[in-house]
């Protein structure tokens, strides 16, 4: 907004003389007006905002905080499909740990991998009753029997078995462990959108800074940065991502943000370099030089606001790209760790489920991503149109 440049230009200068005036619309205001007249863009923006609100609410733990709770039967079908006829009984014993919303380390790493074993044990052998005693046949057949017995011992000591009703259907179905796919999708948006936005901001920042330096100074600085850019852009991006992922052993959201941010700045760099090359020769920049503005002032206070629409559009394009990239990374197993859900990891799980005909996790994660990415892309296009400087002056006085 106009206020930003005002603050930049003269450090929060107060309006010292009050004369009657109407606030002149700055270029951002004009762009916003044009954007608001565009109905499609507004719908797209509403969808994007809804997703972001959802992500924030989930991040604050207000919704979908208990996504790990196994509320339904295994592979509970979506409500609109109806319960599975061949399904197992609906009442099962659930241990308090499993029911607890938190404690992911224990639960996911130790319990979950064999969750279905337990579930089938519980389901098949003693519906509604306490856990059965260990049998000798079981030990000889089941390689996991030892672990099982430990768990059983644990539970028998400290936990009293709790009975709860497992639902036969869930709004958007359940996954392998009966977790609610709707909640998983919501929780997954947190990871996907956060990764998308954070890495896009990082990439745009790097690209803008280097592009500004290269375009503004030219000469040796430009040569070096161009060489650097060429090295980066000469490698296939996915390969580069995988290479960085392999080097950064630690898995986590921060790692993905770094990977995407450090590899994705090249497009922004190229565009911003061109913008700066163009603007530094403009007369208003020469005029700024003539009045004694320093290099940094010319670069960031004079030129940057004039190139900022390019930055904004690039940022928006990158968010879309990085949401998709995160999904691909997680799908390939280079993404988020197993105790975190993202749309990519949901798709990864869905891969195996699909063979069993359990399609709903795939559809949920896929639809969520498709809707967000489409809305964001449409919004980006309209944003670019609204910011197009060719329309400048048409609405001017």
């Amino acid at each position: 907004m106009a206020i930003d440049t005002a603050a930049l230009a003269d450090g929060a200068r107060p309006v010292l003389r009050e004369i009657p005036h109407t606030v002149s619309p700055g270029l951002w205001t004009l762009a916003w007006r044009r954007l608001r007249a565009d109905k499609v863009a507004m719908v797209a923006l509403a969808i994007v905002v809804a997703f972001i609100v959802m992500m924030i609410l989930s991040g604050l733990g207000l919704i979908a905080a208990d996504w790990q709770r196994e509320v339904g039967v295994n592979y509970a079908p979506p409500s609109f499909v109806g319960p599975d006829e061949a399904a197992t009984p609906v009442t099962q014993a659930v241990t308090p740990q499993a029911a607890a919303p938190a404690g992911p380390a224990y639960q996911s790493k130790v319990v979950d991998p064999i969750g279905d074993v337990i579930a089938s044990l519980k389901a098949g052998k003693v519906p509604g009753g306490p856990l059965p005693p260990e049998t000798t046949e079981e030990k000889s057949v089941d390689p996991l029997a030892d672990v099982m017995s430990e768990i059983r011992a644990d539970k028998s000591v400290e936990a009293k078995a709790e009975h709860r009703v497992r639902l036969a259907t869930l709004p958007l179905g359940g996954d392998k462990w009966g977790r609610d796919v709707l909640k998983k999708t919501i929780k997954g948006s947190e990871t996907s959108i956060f990764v998308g936005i954070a890495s896009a901001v990082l990439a745009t920042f790097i690209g803008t800074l280097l592009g500004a330096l290269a375009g503004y100074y030219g000469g040796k600085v430009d040569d070096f940065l161009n060489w650097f850019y060429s090295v980066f852009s000469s490698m296939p991006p996915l390969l580069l991502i995988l290479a960085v992922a392999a080097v950064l052993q630690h898995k986590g959201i921060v790692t993905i943000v770094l990977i995407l941010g450090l590899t994705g700045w090249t497009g922004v760099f190229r565009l911003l370099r061109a913008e700066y090359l163009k603007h530094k020769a403009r007369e208003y920049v020469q005029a700024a030089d003539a009045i004694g503005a320093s290099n940094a002032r010319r670069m960031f206070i004079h030129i940057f606001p004039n190139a900022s629409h390019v930055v904004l559009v690039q940022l928006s394009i990158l968010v879309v790209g990085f949401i998709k990239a995160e999904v691909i990374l997680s799908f390939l197993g280079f993404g988020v760790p197993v105790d975190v859900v993202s749309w990519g990891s949901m798709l990864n799980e869905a891969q195996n489920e699909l063979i069993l005909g359990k399609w709903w996790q795939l559809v949920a994660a896929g639809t969520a991503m498709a809707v967000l990415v489409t809305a964001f892309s449409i919004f980006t296009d309209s944003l670019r149109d609204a910011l197009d400087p060719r329309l400048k002056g048409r609405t001017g006085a």
Partner: protein
Amino acid sequence: MGDIQSGGNRSADTMTGDPLVRVRNLQVSFRLDRHTSFEAVKGISFDIPQNTTVALVGESGSGKSVTSLAMLGLLPPENSIIARTSEIVYGGSNLVTMPIGELRKLRGADISMIFQEPMTSLNPVFSVGWQLEEVLRLHMGMKGRAARQRAIALLGEVGIPEPERRIDAYPSQLSGGQQQRVMIAMAIACEPKLLIADEPTTALDVTIQKQILDLISDLQKRRQMSVLFITHDLAVVGEIADHVIVMRNGEIREQGPAKAIFEAPQDAYTKALLQCRPRLDRRPMRLPVIDDFIKGTGPQHTEERPRGIRAGDPIVLEVKNLGKSFWSREGLFGKREFKAVKDVSFRLPKGKTLGLVGESGSGKTTVGLTLMRLHEATAGEAIFEGHDLLSMPAKEFMHYKRRIQIIFQNPYASLNPRFTIGQILVEPMHIHGIGANAQQRTDMAFELLARVGLPEVSFYKYPHEFSGGQRQRIAIARCLTMKPDILICDESVSALDVSVQAQVLNLLQDLQDEFGMSYIFISHDLAVVKYISDQVMVMSEGEIVEIADSDDIYRNPKMPYTQRLLASIPKGWHGQAAPAR
């Protein structure tokens, strides 16, 4: 061919017979957004007779170009509306209602057009011969050898030297004047009945302008065609037009034979246009501005202003042997030197104006930018208060930076579009620590706005809300914030309309009288330089050709180059060119 049109009988026999084009009640409006539209042409009527040159004169926003585009059906269909009642009758049919296919057949064949910018109107990837032959192929059905022969003949006709060789040249290998000649050759290739020339000489140097004007009027005679000549400059029109139409804000203010318009203008606006432009033979204290005529008060302060420098004038800036070279890379390691400014020396007296004239590429702008250190000089020195500005370290130069300021040519490009006028004016004071606090700086900005004649509300507005002349005032106010000793005006009024030009020149003169600033006034417009300068320096190819008091140089030019330059100035109507006193 310079004096073909100088005969006195040129407009005598042209108004008879059926007109070639009859425009009746032409109304064009543009949709701005869903609810508002802007009426660019408000129901005008005029004729273009056979075998004449009609000049359509008006300032920016007068609707003159819109009129010509409407005649060719070239207005953007998505946001332009031509009223149903409008008629543009050519050869018995109405061009407004004609289907686009038929109109396309007329375009280029019967009616053709040349544009302002020859550089952007030619396709850079095809040779000029190819582009000429394409026109012949499309409209005349000529092919191969015949087309090539015809193209060579056409290039010869428009005065391109060695047409057999030049036909294979690419546009970038030709000069601006030659490119415009090629455009004219393409326009006349199909023997049009009507040639529309939209500001065909505005982008060209004065000597080239003269040649192109001569060529157009010569072709008009020889081909027996009509020319619709669109321009903002009445002086240009005086030499070639038979019939003049003056437009303002989408309306025709006055039309008639050139003689009547120039010798006995009826409309106040026409009078103003004729008077506002500085003339070579007179130098009033203040130039008349349009308001003087619209309000009917007549020109004020018409007494002559004395110009010239005396030996005892104190010198503020002394430039010695200034040189500036640019190097272009050649091959892997080679560099080629291009000397833009060679060995330029001059002295600038306090409170006086040095005019710097030359054609494009003469190095006049480079001199200005080098003195500001916007380009680093490669040789020479510029002594200001006993210090050499060019060799001092950049840090030390910061103290002097505010003392020398520059106003650029293009008022649309020299103000940062993202800053309000307040920010633009306060910034230099902030950088140089002028004024004790923000309050004082703001007060000073308001004072300066009033001084350059802008309302106080401007402080809160953005540059795009102002017209060209107003923006140039803002640029001037920005320089004044630093109270400079020297102001370099780099083509500062060249992009402005004639009436606005007069206002800005008056403002510059008032400010010089008030603050005693020295000006270096760079321009290709000899009349303007003559008006504002005490001393004139003529440059060509980076060198000083001649330097003398402005009255001397215009009355009595010594060097052949200066003489040629002065001879090329459009004289306006012949009756006017003679001294009025």
